[in-house]
């Protein structure tokens, strides 16, 4: 049995930032467990620019962003094990992992920080009719093939999903010599950044078909083509709009799902909306001493927010280890009309320092509407937002003073209001 103050599961941006923050805040007995052969997680395959504008005030590629943390980890000699798969966590914070050198490792942690990231939604989950040929990849797996292994998945590509991963891969594959024929998006808008539409699609004249989806996969052994159709307001294919597009590869960028199998094993209660754990403002899950941050908690758009969140999780984990968390009362944070979810889902006012950040996503596209925050029935915040989309994480910052002003508040609710 190994004893550690903090065990961090995952050495992607969340895990690395958490480790660094823990060390800088006085706890050095840390162990990071990483299943890949390298530190940095998903950043290693995100070779494009656009990371670190907030954190480092420069635009870095994914690997460069990761290296800022990796260098410090190496410098400070923070312990990590690569090629190590965590296979179980208990609600008593016992972690069981396995690797090729040590075999089965059992670690008793004082605090665990979950930083496992997320997986991609597969074709099967979409029930796209057809055979089950080869040549169908989720965009992230295709990105891994190209950027980590140096393999090319296909020559003539169709992409379903215009989120950033789909757009980035449209450009990536085009640069490597593939012919990306179209990008289909079921929604009437793309959830990707506008700059990516320009740099990834417009630059290479790749057509973007909004309100379109794939209704059939053709080809039995290797994919030969897809049927693309327009969809109506309820996202149902419109008969008569079908078009056959030949291809030998289909990339799916249709959703990320936080990887909480281990969390579930530990008994952590998962929010069915986010598929990530319910957490308090200490980023503590329903199991005391188990914290969550990064994509495993909720899928982020900006890695800078991940690093921020992870740093906070580490600080709170330290408080837990020193037994100085108060756990006096928990105010529920409720997502009402127009709000899909909030993180955190509960707030302990004693843990609020100068202010409390609530991150959230809306459930639809709203133009010129208000984000409102209510402390019980009292509206304390009412801000006009020109545009709100589900693709962009939003936040509200609640000053500590408001918690002092409403000491008996039971619920804080967020909603989108017309006026």
């Amino acid at each position: 049995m190994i004893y550690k103050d903090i065990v961090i599961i995952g050495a992607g941006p969340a895990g690395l930032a958490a480790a660094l923050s823990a060390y800088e805040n006085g706890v050095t007995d840390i162990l990071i467990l990483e299943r890949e052969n390298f530190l940095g997680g998903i950043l290693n395959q995100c070779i494009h620019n656009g990371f670190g504008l907030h954190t480092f005030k420069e635009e870095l590629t994914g690997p460069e962003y990761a290296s800022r943390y990796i260098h410090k980890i190496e410098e400070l000699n923070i312990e990590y094990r690569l090629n190590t798969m965590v296979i179980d966590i208990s609600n008593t914070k016992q972690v069981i992992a396995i690797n090729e050198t040590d075999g089965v490792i059992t670690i008793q942690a004082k605090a665990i920080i979950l930083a496992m990231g997320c997986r991609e939604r597969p074709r099967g989950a979409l029930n796209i009719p057809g055979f089950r040929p080869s040549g169908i990849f989720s965009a992230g797996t295709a990105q891994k093939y190209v950027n980590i292994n140096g393999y090319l998945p296909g020559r003539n590509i169709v992409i379903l999903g215009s989120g950033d991963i789909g757009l980035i891969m449209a450009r990536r594959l085009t640069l490597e010599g593939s012919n990306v024929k179209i990008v289909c998006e079921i929604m009437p808008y793309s959830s990707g950044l506008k700059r990516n539409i320009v740099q990834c699609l417009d630059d290479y004249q790749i057509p973007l078909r909004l309100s379109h989806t794939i209704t059939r996969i053709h080809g039995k052994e290797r994919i030969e083509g897809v049927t693309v159709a327009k969809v109506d307001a309820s996202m149902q294919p419109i008969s008569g709009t079908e078009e056959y597009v030949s291809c030998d590869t289909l990339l799916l960028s249709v959703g990320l799902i936080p990887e909480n199998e281990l969390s579930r094993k530990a008994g952590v209660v998962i929010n069915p909306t986010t598929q990530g754990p319910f957490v308090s403002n200490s980023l503590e899950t329903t199991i005391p001493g188990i914290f969550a941050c990064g994509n495993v908690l909720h899928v982020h758009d900006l890695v800078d927010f991940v690093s921020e969140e992870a740093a906070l999780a580490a600080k709170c984990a330290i408080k837990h280890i020193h037994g100085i968390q108060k756990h006096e009362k928990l105010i529920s944070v409720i997502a009402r009309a127009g709000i899909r979810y909030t993180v955190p889902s509960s707030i302990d006012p004693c843990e609020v320092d100068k202010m409390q950040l609530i991150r959230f996503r809306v459930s639809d596209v709203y133009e010129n509407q208000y984000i409102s925050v209510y402390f019980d029935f009292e509206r304390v915040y009412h801000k006009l937002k020109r545009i709100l989309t589900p693709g962009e994480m939003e936040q509200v910052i609640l000053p500590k003073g408001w918690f002092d002003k409403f000491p008996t508040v039971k619920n804080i609710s967020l909603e989108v209001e017309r006026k």
Partner: protein
Amino acid sequence: MTEVGKRQVTCINCPLGCTLEVEIHNDESIIVTGFQCSRGEDYAKKEVLNPTRTITTTVPVLNGDVQMVSVKTSSDIPKKSIKACMLALKGIVVEAPINIGDIIIKNVCNTEVDIVATKEVKKK
């Protein structure tokens, strides 16, 4: 010679992606509106006169702890040079160890821009 008239351009400098209106006049002057920072104004002018991009790709590594090293152009290069730049990288293989910033190709395709490594690769 840039065409006279109005164009809409999306700035790609940061995730805000401001929509910029660009007016090109007969006397070749360019007026930009809609930017939220000075980089936007510069970008819009450049985009209509001489559009450039930063390119990121990968290069195979020998004897490294990973198979590929990610690389980028050290600065932006003309859009029209992108294809040639990619072809210049075809067949290039590097050997570990590699540090961030190592030059893989100097002055790629006469752009005065280098291809540099963006990842550290240790020897296997």
